[in-house]
């Protein structure tokens, strides 16, 4: 049984103690995109009925020990693992990305930004893989302006893991300058290979450091983030309508 094309999708947004972009994501999903956003407290144990899951940005558990390290043991994470193993789309933004790394949904780890600052600014990223459920409305190589806001976005993977990411198009976004050159100076945080976002091998989980939910509507004079939400929602509609 699938959904009809006009049925609103149900997007679960997980709320951890210390999440602070959960409502921004819910706003984009419901007010901007016209679908149903469900805030799900991290102590819940099911994501039943959800079409996709967003792990929002923030400071889950105050970033104690390591970013995302405690949130990964929240009861809801087991349900999300099962959901993702069945091919469900999971989008982790900023702290959500850090949680996905700690929980092993995605390979690698985050280090402190090279200059030790909390960086809150617009960055440019290049879409390295426009054939994912989260980026298919972008053009390959398209340059997006997206804001970052983090102190631990310095992505690290060991050489073997990095080669695998490169070889299998798992690097979805790279920091670049406004002309699309991924250089050292356009790398805000020291991230290896200018990585700003990666997907898992199966392609249904995306982690991204910049915040698409902060630039997804006209009032922000930058709607580049809209493309990420739009891609995800269209993928879901396509998939579910095929199942009818």
């Amino acid at each position, binding site marked *: 049984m699938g959904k009809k094309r006009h049925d609103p999708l149900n997007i679960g947004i997980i709320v951890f103690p210390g999440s602070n972009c959960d409502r921004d994501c819910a706003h984009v999903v419901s007010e901007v995109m016209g679908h149903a956003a469900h805030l799900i407290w991290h102590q819940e144990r099911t994501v039943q009925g959800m079409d996709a899951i967003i792990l929002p940005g923030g400071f889950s558990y105050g970033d104690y020990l390591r970013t995302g390290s405690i949130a990964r043991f929240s009861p809801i994470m087991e349900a999300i693992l099962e959901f993702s193993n069945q091919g469900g789309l999971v989008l982790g933004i900023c702290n959500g990305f850090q949680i996905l790394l700690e929980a092993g949904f995605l390979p690698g780890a985050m*280090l402190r930004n090279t200059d030790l600052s909390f960086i809150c600014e617009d960055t440019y990223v290049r879409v390295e893989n426009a054939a994912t459920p989260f980026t298919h409305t972008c053009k390959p190589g398209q340059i997006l302006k997206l804001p970052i806001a983090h102190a631990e976005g310095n992505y690290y993977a060991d050489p073997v893991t990095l080669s695998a990411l490169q070889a299998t198009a798992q690097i979805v976004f790279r920091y670049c300058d406004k002309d699309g050159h991924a250089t050292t100076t356009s790398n805000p945080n020291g991230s290896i290979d200018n990585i700003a976002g990666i997907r898992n091998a199966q392609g249904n989980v995306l982690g991204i450091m910049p915040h698409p939910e902060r630039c997804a509507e006209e009032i922000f004079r930058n709607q580049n983030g809209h493309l990420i939400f739009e891609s995800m929602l269209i993928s879901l509609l396509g998939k579910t309508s095929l199942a009818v």
Partner: protein
Amino acid sequence: MKAKIYITLKNGIHDPQGRAVQQSLNMLGFDAVQDVRMGKFLEVDFQDTEKESAESSIKNMCQKLLANTVIEDFRYEIVET
């Protein structure tokens, strides 16, 4: 019994905090300081536990939560209290 657990970044992994501290020390005139690596130190108290089982649970808790073994190493000492 008490466990003293040390968690440090693996060799070769850039440590921006250690580097900043090293530069400050150099600026203060501690010229001999060549490198600083920063880490975490935890003291964990155990109650009525055999040393052997404490040891295996320390390893387990480090691998599971206390350290991220992608980027960090851990070592520990057990102190009888």
